[in-house]
């Protein structure tokens, strides 16, 4: 919130669209603005009435550079829009940078998403430091319902909930790296970095960065699903394979490789396998282990075929381990298995568990 938790004192807020962008049809701008306001009215008792003339609480317009409020825009990119917290005069007013290109989809800056963020300010929300929240200050395109739990908690603490709530599906808060019960979805190396997938986020650990960096999967790879099941790197081929459901994607560096997604069954897995829990490439053998429920498969990277004699039982072949795995990594002869909030350090040569750690110890917790 802004200092002193400023908010509209009346739940009936008026708005007026003062001018339009030529990037979109007028009706598309009207729809984006109305839909953006509806996002907030769905979760609060607020109602928004459109005015066609005169002074409204929220005056909406497009302008370039200095546009009348001594708070200039900066040309293409950089600053996209700004809005003033509730109050008289300029309070609540919302301005979009006309030097940006605005769109209805992801081809340019999505007007609906930016407007929803700005109306959050116009209603009294300041910026969130949760990278998954709509009120995070950095633009990120995402489909679906735009609000996260953090946004809803913020607005409802000012205005309360909607007395006739519509069913909404807010995005969960970003996972906290030091939550003692934290589990991982997938772990892989990527050219010397470690990438840890959890929900719709990933952490990036770089040997020269003391703190992990948390980012939305969609903001780096818009076409990869929000939920990653497993991932592994084959450094010889300089490729990272990412699994989600029955599909897999390939990365070369941070770039997606053309020709993907492919079906996981192309690897030789039976059609009954619908999801891979964990994957890890063993550099010493050239084999990739694919963990599926209580069993695992061995894929020969050199021949591109599944080894015979599999699947085998995880419990039998990795004594001391749980019978299921969420994620796996391999470093210097040790396999690191992650299951729920526990991490097992397993010696591949000694065939035994050497250490048991917290899952998030890898995140400096």
């Amino acid at each position: 919130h802004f200092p002193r938790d400023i908010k509209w004192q009346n739940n009936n807020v008026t708005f007026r669209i003062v001018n339009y962008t030529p990037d979109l049809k007028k009706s598309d701008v009207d729809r984006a603005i109305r839909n953006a306001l509806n996002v907030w009215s769905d979760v609060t008792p607020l109602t928004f009435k459109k005015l066609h003339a005169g002074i409204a609480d929220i005056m909406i317009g497009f302008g370039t550079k200095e546009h009348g409020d001594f708070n200039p825009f900066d040309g293409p990119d950089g600053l996209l829009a700004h809005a003033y917290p509730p109050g008289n005069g300029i309070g609540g007013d919302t301005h979009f940078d006309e030097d940006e290109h605005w769109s209805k989809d992801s081809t340019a800056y999505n007007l609906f998403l930016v407007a929803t963020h700005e109306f959050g300010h116009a209603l009294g929300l300041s910026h969130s430091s949760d990278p998954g929240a709509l009120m995070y200050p950095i633009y990120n395109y995402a489909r679906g319902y735009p609000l996260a739990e953090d946004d809803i908690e913020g607005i409802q603490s000012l205005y309360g909930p909607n007395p006739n709530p519509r069913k909404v599906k807010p995005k969960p808060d970003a996972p906290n790296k030091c939550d003692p019960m934290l589990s991982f979805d997938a772990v892989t190396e990527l050219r010397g970095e470690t990438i840890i997938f959890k929900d719709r986020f990933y952490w990036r650990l770089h040997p020269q960065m003391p703190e992990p960096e948390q980012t939305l999967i969609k903001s780096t790879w818009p076409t990869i699903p929000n939920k990653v099941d497993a991932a592994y790197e084959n450094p010889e081929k300089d490729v990272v394979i990412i699994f989600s459901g029955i599909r897999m994607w390939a990365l070369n560096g941070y770039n997606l490789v053309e020709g993907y997604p492919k079906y996981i069954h192309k690897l030789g897995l039976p059609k009954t396998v619908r999801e891979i829990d964990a994957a890890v490439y063993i550099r010493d053998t050239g084999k990739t282990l694919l963990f599926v429920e209580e069993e695992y498969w061995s894929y020969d990277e050199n021949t591109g075929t599944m080894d015979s004699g599999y699947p085998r039982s995880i419990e039998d072949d990795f004594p001391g381990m749980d019978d299921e795995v969420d994620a796996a990594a391999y470093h210097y002869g040790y396999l690191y298995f992650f299951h729920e909030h526990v991490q097992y350090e397993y010696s591949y040569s000694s065939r035994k568990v050497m250490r048991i750690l917290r899952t998030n110890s890898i995140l400096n917790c």
Partner: protein
Amino acid sequence: LPLPATDTDNRLLAEKYLRRYYGLPTGLLGSRKSSDAMQTKIKEMQSFFKLKVTGKLDDNTLELMEMARCGVPDIGEYN
């Protein structure tokens, strides 16, 4: 290869960013060494974005300063 941005360019970018979003005062900054005010503001920004708080203009901090964003200050006074 493209030439890397010079330190001066980076510093100007950072000053502009910190003035706009973190209320960095104008006219107080030394030309060679980061002033206390600038360091403090960089730290505030790094803390908000959960970057490593160093007070220095490292690559991650500069990368974030270049991203498309909303124009409302992240912190600071509302007047």
